[in-house]
């Protein structure tokens, strides 16, 4: 897969949801997008396959996936692209699975339609997939209905469907958010294992910095529709540059502070709601470094380290 670069603008009437996002995912690598509700992270990852709500319109200079221009695709090509090259999993597997169909048949259907297998081959492949995603006694589970499975198992089934066609990119949008920590850890390591085995890239969207830090190579921090900081995960966790990233990392409760009665400063105020018209930096009202120029500045990513960029001109060179 070639580098994928996205730059787009979504408009819902006159409303701007996401602005000026560019990034690239290399083959076999994992990019995380972290941000709070309304930061535009889900819209960003959906636009990779041009899957936006009907009222959303996107514009981009270029979305290149594996050498193909996604923006230039017609409906049929786009459909084939979504079916074969990209797998997607969401927070709530229950709403993505057909409640009236056995889960095994749903996996087999994907294989028949998208990979052109015949019934018998699709069934045996589906059983292998169930085993691959760590479901015990796949023969029995093949015949289960979604409501008979636990949340973790349903998410495993969704992953089986998503990776059935060996996609080059897996998009996981808050895929582990609804799961218990122990199940979450299993699902994350499953995604990592499949990534290595199939050699796919992963785009992981989460509000949880811990999840991102555990599985991603690089991370984009989003706020108010902008990427405010981008870089290698270790760099961002150890030397966050943008005031929002710093404040966000400081807000995360940690096990280490158990019983110490730390009171975290948190971030005062509210995040901007999706589509709120803002000029300048979206974080300006909650930022301790803010000054007048921040209200009118243009959001430009500035180099702050190797492969590490930040949109805040104030904190550049002021390494804490």
């Amino acid at each position: 897969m070639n580098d994928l670069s996205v730059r787009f603008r979504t408009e819902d009437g006159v409303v701007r949801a996401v602005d000026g996002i560019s990034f690239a995912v290399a083959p076999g690598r994992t990019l995380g997008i972290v941000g709070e509700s309304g930061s535009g992270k889900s819209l960003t990852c959906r636009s990779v396959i041009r899957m936006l709500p009907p009222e959303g319109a996107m514009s981009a200079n270029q979305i290149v996936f594996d050498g193909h221009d996604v923006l230039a695709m017609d409906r049929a090509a786009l459909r084939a692209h979504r079916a074969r090259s990209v797998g997607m999993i969401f927070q709530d597997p229950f709403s993505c699975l057909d409640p009236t169909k056995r889960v095994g048949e749903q996996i087999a259907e994907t294989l028949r339609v998208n990979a052109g297998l015949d019934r018998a081959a699709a069934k045996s492949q589906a059983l292998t997939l169930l085993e691959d995603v760590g479901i015990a006694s796949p023969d029995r589970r093949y015949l289960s209905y979604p409501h008979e499975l636990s949340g973790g198992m349903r998410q495993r089934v969704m992953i089986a469907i998503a990776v059935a066609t060996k996609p080059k990119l897996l998009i996981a949008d808050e895929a582990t958010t609804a799961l218990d920590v122990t199940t979450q850890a299993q699902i994350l390591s499953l995604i990592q294992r499949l990534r290595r085995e199939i050699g796919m890239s992963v785009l992981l969207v989460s509000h949880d910095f811990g999840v991102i830090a555990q599985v991603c190579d690089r991370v984009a921090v989003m706020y108010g529709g902008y990427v405010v900081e981008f870089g290698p995960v270790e760099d961002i966790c150890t030397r966050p540059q943008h005031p929002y990233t710093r404040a966000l990392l400081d807000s995360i409760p940690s096990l280490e502070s158990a019983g110490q009665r730390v009171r975290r400063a948190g971030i005062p105020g509210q995040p901007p709601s999706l589509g709120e018209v803002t000029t300048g930096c979206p974080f300006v009202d909650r930022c301790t470094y803010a000054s007048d120029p921040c209200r009118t500045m243009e959001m430009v990513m500035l180099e702050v380290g190797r492969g590490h960029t930040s949109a805040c001109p104030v904190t550049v060179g002021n390494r804490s």
Partner: protein
Amino acid sequence: MSSDTAPILSVNGVVKRFVLRRTLGDRLARRPGLTQTAVDHVSFELAHGEILGLAGGSGSGKTTLARMLIRLVEPDEGRIIFRGSDVRDAGGRDLREVRRQMQMVFQDPYSSLNPRMRVGAAILEAGRVHHQPGAENGTSFVERILDLVRLPASAAQRRPQELSGGQRQRVAIARALAVGPEVLIADEAVSALDVSIQTQLLNLFLDLRDELGLSIIFVAHQLSVIAEVADRVAIMHEGRIVEIGSTVDVFHHPTHDYTRALLAAHPHPRPPAPTGGVA
């Protein structure tokens, strides 16, 4: 926190079984049928002014346990001693009084607040129903309660849907405080909020304990949240409390395998220490 005085709440051997299937044969033979034990002989105490964290995976019984304390779910066995008398024996007026003194805050304030009622009216109604001092004087009562949860007086004129998630949860807490409770039971009260807002709410719970001397039972699946607010923590697994102790002990020296597994699975950004530099 006076640990030598009697606990405000003492739970002893509480059991809840849910009936999964009960056939006619079971009924005729007076057998219970197929049951699932959601809470299995659980005992703990809550001291005055203490924050007790209740953690565990989904299905571990923590919500069922929390609901039994005010009998939103009827316990099958055990004793729930609140201020010297058994909640299970309370009926009518007594039960209403128990529920006034132990207030619950749920995960989703959207479904626990009346969408058509302005915030001020909702708070005032709660206060008047329970004859709270000052409730006859509407505006100042509402302002005082809103101030407790750090909302401006102007919030009284708003409807729930005009507020953000964090503000709505503050309103839900305000409404609970309006009836003058001694115990707050927060069931996943900060779980649906963004981290930056979550921090504000956690600080609010700590403030309420300090200012009002509230005792708080804080139910959450997120261990790190409990690590930061609770004085003591109980870890639930399959209906039982598998470990209970001071937050420091349980998180730094876990003794039960399940606690260790939970702690090991907890994701955190690699350098766990806060980075500092933000006021």
